[in-house]
């Protein structure tokens, strides 16, 4: 029964990783930028929610709403002001730019908020602590289910947006051939900025859930980036459903590793990541298409 429990908890944890990885996957899929500041942007989102909750005493779920809008704007501005310029200088420059951005965000957060570890877990009421008990060994946490449901909703919503909305179609066209997109009347810079906005807003959403389900501090970003990156690579770069699969594979690997020995949790995730990379470099659902 413990193994069943490990798998179930792994799937729930995988929902969180998928949510964390979703924006990273979108940004790579659309503009081929690997955003090394993704984890720190998520943590920035967590701090913004924390500030809102601290000042107004509302539920973190309510505080999320304005933060998502704000972070969309941050992503949009980041693309227009910083990444767009660096993209023109070749593929390596955006990577260095986001690396620098990650350091700037971490240090700003450290400066403003101090290195104290915080959590929003206590501010969400019952969701964080209650669960459905299935049997003696197996309990399903309500928060875990909520996060998995949010991850599936976000990924499904993005999928519908990309396949059916005119703006989503323009995003796929731009991802496939940016020069030709301009030649059929698409403002590719605006499309890129919108993709960055969505990516950063979803990162903030994941960051808020990190703050609710665990704890965070200004230096939490890089670890989250590694998990997100592993989920994306396992699932297949640029494939949204692959990102969900990758997140779940990573989550299950970690909980099964922990079942063998609590020390092996993170290590098991890394090993599965390296194995997938070695055996099938383009990931489980490796995409033919840039974004699907």
């Amino acid at each position: 029964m413990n193994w069943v429990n490990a798998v179930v908890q792994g799937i729930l944890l995988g929902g969180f990783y998928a949510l964390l990885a979703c924006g990273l996957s979108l940004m790579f899929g659309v503009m081929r930028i690997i955003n090394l500041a993704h984890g720190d942007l998520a943590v920035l989102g967590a701090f913004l929610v924390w500030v809102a909750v601290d000042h107004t005493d509302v539920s973190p779920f309510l505080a999320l709403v304005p933060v998502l809008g704000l972070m969309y704007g941050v992503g949009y501005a980041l693309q227009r002001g910083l990444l767009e310029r660096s993209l023109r200088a070749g593929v390596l420059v955006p990577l260095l730019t986001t690396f620098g951005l990650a350091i700037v965000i971490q240090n700003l957060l450290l400066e403003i908020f101090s290195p104290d570890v915080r959590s929003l877990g206590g501010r969400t009421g019952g969701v964080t602590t209650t669960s459905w008990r299935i049997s003696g060994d197996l309990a399903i946490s309500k928060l875990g289910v909520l996060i998995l449901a949010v991850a599936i909703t976000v990924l499904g919503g993005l999928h519908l947006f990309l396949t059916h909305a005119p703006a989503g179609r323009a995003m796929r066209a731009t991802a496939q051939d940016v020069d030709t997109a301009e030649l059929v009347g698409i403002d590719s810079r605006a499309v890129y900025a919108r993709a960055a906005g969505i990516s950063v807003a979803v990162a903030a959403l994941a960051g808020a859930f990190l703050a609710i389900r665990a704890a965070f501090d200004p230096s939490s970003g890089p670890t989250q980036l590694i998990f997100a990156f592993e989920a994306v690579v396992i699932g297949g770069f640029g494939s949204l459903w692959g990102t969900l699969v990758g997140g779940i594979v990573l989550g299950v690997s970690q909980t099964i590793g922990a079942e063998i020995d609590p020390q092996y949790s993170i290590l098991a995730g890394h090993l599965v990541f390296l194995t997938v990379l070695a055996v099938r470099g383009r990931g489980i659902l490796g995409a033919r298409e840039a974004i699907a």
Partner: protein
Amino acid sequence: MTVLSIEGLDARHGLLQAVRNVSFEVAEGETIALVGANGAGKTTLLRTIAGAHRPAAGRVVFDGAEVTRLRAYRRVRAGIALVPEGRRLFPELTVEENLLVAGAKARAGPWSVSKVVEAFPLLEPLRKRRAASLSGGEQQATAIGRALMTNPRLLLIDEVSLGLAPLAVDAVYRSLETLIGSGATVILVEQDLARGMAVADRVLCMLEGRIVLQGGAGELTRDEVTAAYFGVRSQEGEA
């Protein structure tokens, strides 16, 4: 009425000057065949008119307004559409999506997915197919249809028949003639001289980045164009 006016246009690829001091005008409803050998600068000229390539000097005036500094997508919305060399469809989008994506932010006009399919009947059974799975002729029809979806006042077509089977060329030209008959303004690049001269009102021949010969399609002989095409005339002039 003049739709497009090119004034002293220079375009470079790094050190290579692909278009040298080119000037010409296109009247409303006119069809121009742009001919010349590989590397004569035809593609670069079309891409510069469409805004995909930045000119080093000169002006592009469209519909009385200078568009030289305008980005490509803004020119599309002003009414310039380019069917690029090699078709350049969005490979993972379906035929219909390729058309819709171009029509989304277009200027108002008569073209719609159903109108395009009417003009290119071969596309009807292919609407839900991925563009990457189409044959060359089907891709060219989709690419022209995609350009039409933007309701252009000026349609630029690069390499109409290159790489297409003869039957596919016939089909594409039949649709093109309907289009030209309806009063569209078209500049087309064509390797097949006879085809180009048959549909065009005027022929422009480029050699090494310059326009070396131009005239009404009915007034020029094939030999004259061929001579200009290979630069025979200019060598005789030097001798």
